[in-house]
C-alpha cells in the first residue's frame, strides 16, 4: 500500500518537527561555568595564612618568590617610577641579630593581619579584609591618599605613580591607587596556592588554612617555633616565620 502525503499532513508533520526542535534547542545557551568557579561568598570559617621557614629558604628561593610574584601580577616594570616610587609587593629583607651577628634573609610582603592598621585608617573603606582573612585594596574605591601606606608597619604597600597598560587579566592595576600582596586571591579562590609558594615548591613555605586542624600549616605551627614580625603590635598576622 503506497502512502501519499497530502498537503495538510505535510504541513502538520513539518510544524511538529520544527516545534520540537525549537523546544530542545532553546535549552542550549552559550553559558558555561568553569568547573571550580567560586559561586559562594567566602566565610570566616577559614583563615588563610603562610608559614615561612627562613632556615630552609635560600636567597635564590627568595629571589624566585619575588620573580614569581612579579610574573603573576605584572608589577616591577614601571618605566617612569624611580626609587621608592617603584612597586614592591614582596621583597627580600636581611635582618641581623646585633648580639650574635647572625644574618637572616626573609621575604616580606603584606602580613594579612587579623587587625590590619591599613583598614583602620582608610577613609573610603577601600582597604579591606575579606572574611577569610585576606587583606586587599578595593581600587574601585581607593582615592590614593596613601594613609594605609603610612599605617602599615611592614611597609608592604606601594602606590602606582604612572599610567599602566597591558595588565594581567587577573590583576587590574592602575595609576593613583595603592596596591599590595593579595595572597594571590584569584588563585586561592580557585583552590591553588599563591605564586610565591608554588615557586619554592618545598615545605620551606607552607600555605593553608590556619583554622583547619588537619591542614599542614596548622599541624606545623603546633610543632615548630614560629614568630610574627612585630608581634608587639598585636596584629595577629596571617604570615608567620620560623627561624628568626
Amino acid at each position, binding site marked *: 500500500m503506497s502512502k*501519499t*502525503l497530502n498537503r495538510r499532513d*505535510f504541513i502538520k*508533520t*513539518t510544524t511538529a*518537527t*520544527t516545534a520540537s*526542535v*525549537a523546544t530542545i*534547542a532553546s535549552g*542550549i*545557551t*552559550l*553559558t*558555561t*561555568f*568553569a568547573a571550580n*568557579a*567560586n*559561586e*559562594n*561568598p*567566602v566565610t570566616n570559617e577559614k583563615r588563610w595564612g603562610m608559614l615561612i621557614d627562613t632556615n630552609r629558604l635560600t636567597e635564590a628561593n627568595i629571589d624566585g618568590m619575588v620573580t614569581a610574584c612579579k610574573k603573576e601580577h605584572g608589577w616591577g616594570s614601571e618605566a617612569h617610577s624611580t626609587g621608592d616610587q617603584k612597586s614592591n609587593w614582596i621583597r627580600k629583607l636581611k635582618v641581623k641579630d646585633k648580639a650574635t651577628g647572625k644574618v637572616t634573609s626573609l621575604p616580606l610582603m603584606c602580613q594579612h593581619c587579623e587587625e590590619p592598621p591599613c583598614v583602620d585608617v582608610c577613609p573610603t573603606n577601600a582597604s*579591606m579584609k*575579606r*572574611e*577569610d582573612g585576606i587583606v*586587599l585594596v*578595593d*581600587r*574601585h574605591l581607593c582615592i590614593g591618599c596613601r594613609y594605609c601606606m603610612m599605617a602599615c608597619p611592614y611597609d608592604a604597600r606601594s602606590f602606582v605613580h604612572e*599610567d*599602566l*597598560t*597591558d*595588565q*594581567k*587579566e*587577573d590583576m*587590574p*592595576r*592602575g*595609576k593613583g*591607587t595603592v596596591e599590595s600582596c593579595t595572597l594571590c*586571591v*584569584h588563585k586561592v*579562590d*580557585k583552590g591553588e596556592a599563591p605564586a610565591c609558594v608554588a615557586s619554592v615548591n618545598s615545605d620551606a613555605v607552607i600555605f593553608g588554612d590556619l583554622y583547619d586542624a588537619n591542614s599542614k600549616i596548622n599541624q606545623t605551627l603546633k610543632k615548630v617555633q614560629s614568630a610574627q614580625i612585630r608581634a608587639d603590635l598585636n596584629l595577629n598576622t596571617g604570615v608567620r616565620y620560623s627561624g628568626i
Partner: protein
Amino acid sequence: MYRFLVVFIGFAFMSIANAYENPLTGNSEAAKSSKQYHENVSVIRKMHPEFLNHKRDKTLRQGVRTEENSLKGCVNCHANKDETTNEYHSVNDKDQFCSDCHQQVSVSVDCFSCHRTTPGASYKGVR
C-alpha cells in the same frame, strides 16, 4: 515527495539557527556567535554599569568568581581582532566595542585605567 520533506526540514533548521539576529558587527566572538548570551540586549545595554558594579563588589569582597557579569568576560567575548596582525584591538579603542557607544554619549569609561583591555594570555577562545 519525501525528498521535498527533507529539504523543507533543512530549511526549518536553518531558520532556527538564524532566529537570533546578532546585533553586533566585527569579528569578536560575540559577533560571530549565533547564540544569545545575554537574556535581553536592551537590558544589558541600559543596565550594564549596575551589573558590573554589583559584580565587582561580590568578586572583590566576597570572592564570587562566576562568569556572569564579569568584566573579563565582556572583554574576552567582545574584543575584535585585527585582520592583518591577528592581534586584539583594545575594547576601549576608538570605534571598538566599549567606546563605540561611550564616545557617542560622551561618557568616559574608567574601567580600563586598571583593567586589561584585551583577552589575556590564558584565554583560550570559544566557550
